[in-house]
């Protein structure tokens, strides 16, 4: 389903068309659930995130502005934000303690962040620009994005000082932005 069709469905949702909303769910929930599962690492949390996100999408469909972002981008951001907020709630301490087990519990078939990075980017501006980053910059950005890791968790995972990891991310993002800006993205 392309952006145009998704946009049409969202417009119909804004008019209270529940059938359109169901179709929207059928065509996008699997992609969005994957995002929630990946970041929260728990199926029950991911289900909660997905449910809340879609209620949010239904209620705010009239506020969706196609000029500002593509439909999937808008919906993904809603899911990511909810997942990250859930993940970062004061039970943070509990998560850190179980972090190693949680990382280990992700089934082997699930692609690692670097693999995802390679696969994700069908020849596009982002792919070209990513190539201009150092390996460390790419890895830290991929881990942060796909696994929803905070700076502290990244430092632990990559076994590097906090300052180093922060710098990789900051410089990596700066380079990405200049590269994409130069291409008019």
């Amino acid at each position, binding site marked *: 389903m392309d952006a145009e069709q998704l946009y049409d469905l969202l417009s119909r949702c804004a*008019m*209270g068309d529940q059938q359109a909303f169901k179709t929207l769910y059928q065509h996008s929930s699997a992609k969005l659930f*994957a995002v929630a599962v990946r970041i929260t690492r728990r199926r029950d949390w991911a289900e909660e995130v997905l449910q809340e996100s*879609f209620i949010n999408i239904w209620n705010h469909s009239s506020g969706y502005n196609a000029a500002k972002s593509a439909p999937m*981008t808008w919906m*993904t951001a809603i899911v990511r934000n909810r997942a990250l907020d859930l993940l*970062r709630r004061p039970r943070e301490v509990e998560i850190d303690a179980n972090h190693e087990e949680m990382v280990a519990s992700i089934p082997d078939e699930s692609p690692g962040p670097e693999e995802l*990075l390679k696969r994700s980017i069908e020849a596009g501006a*982002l792919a070209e620009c990513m190539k201009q980053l150092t390996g460390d910059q790419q890895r830290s950005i991929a881990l942060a994005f*796909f696994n929803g890791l905070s700076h502290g968790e990244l430092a632990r995972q990559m076994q590097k000082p906090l300052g180093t990891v922060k710098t990789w991310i900051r410089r990596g993002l700066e380079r990405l932005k200049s590269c994409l800006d130069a291409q008019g993205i």
Partner: protein
Amino acid sequence: MKLANEDLRNKLAAEYVLGTMSAHARRRFALKLKESPALRRAVAGWEERLAPLALALPEVEPPSRVWQAIESRIRPATRAAPGLLQTLSFWRFSSIASGLVALALLLVVAVPGPVAPPAAETRMVVVMNDLKTRNPAMTASWEAGKPGKRALRIRVIGHAEMAPGTAWELWILPGENQNPISLGLITTHNTQTLIVPEALAVKLDQARGLAMSVEPAGGSPTGLPTGPVLYAGPLVET
């Protein structure tokens, strides 16, 4: 957080979208987002830049209980059975729809009637003006006279937004003391096509004009306009 600086805005927006901010920082940032369009733009920029990454994950089917929970939380759309109002004449609308009444008066006076059925393949055009500003706000055109459905080409001029919980409904104005007939809901898209079923095609071809009213989400619960008429205009043969 001093956010006057564009570089700082960009840096923080990137961290927010990437997901590296702590819970505390995320909360504070989310509040700032509400107040700052510039910050929202910076966030939207990063969401767009990183979007291809987000779409990379292999799909995971959610269990059906998630959809069931969502469905049960959405207020079901109800359409009240056509009742008393349907039997009242055109002139006895609620006062909210009085704009429609005034317009109908204008049309009846301005358009010489009765309207004869148009020849086949006549292009019909309606320019609907904003009743407040008198500026053209929407146009609709279609090929009249042939058998079967009609494809109504609608253009919304400029940028329009619907208030949350509302819908735009398009109406045929048959004139001559007849009630408006619903053509269904339309969107605020600049270009759209509305398919009008065969059953309404003749009424459409012989309409005096078209009008758009703002209804509750899901459309008028009564089958007649209940909300304010924003745009309306007479039918012209080209």
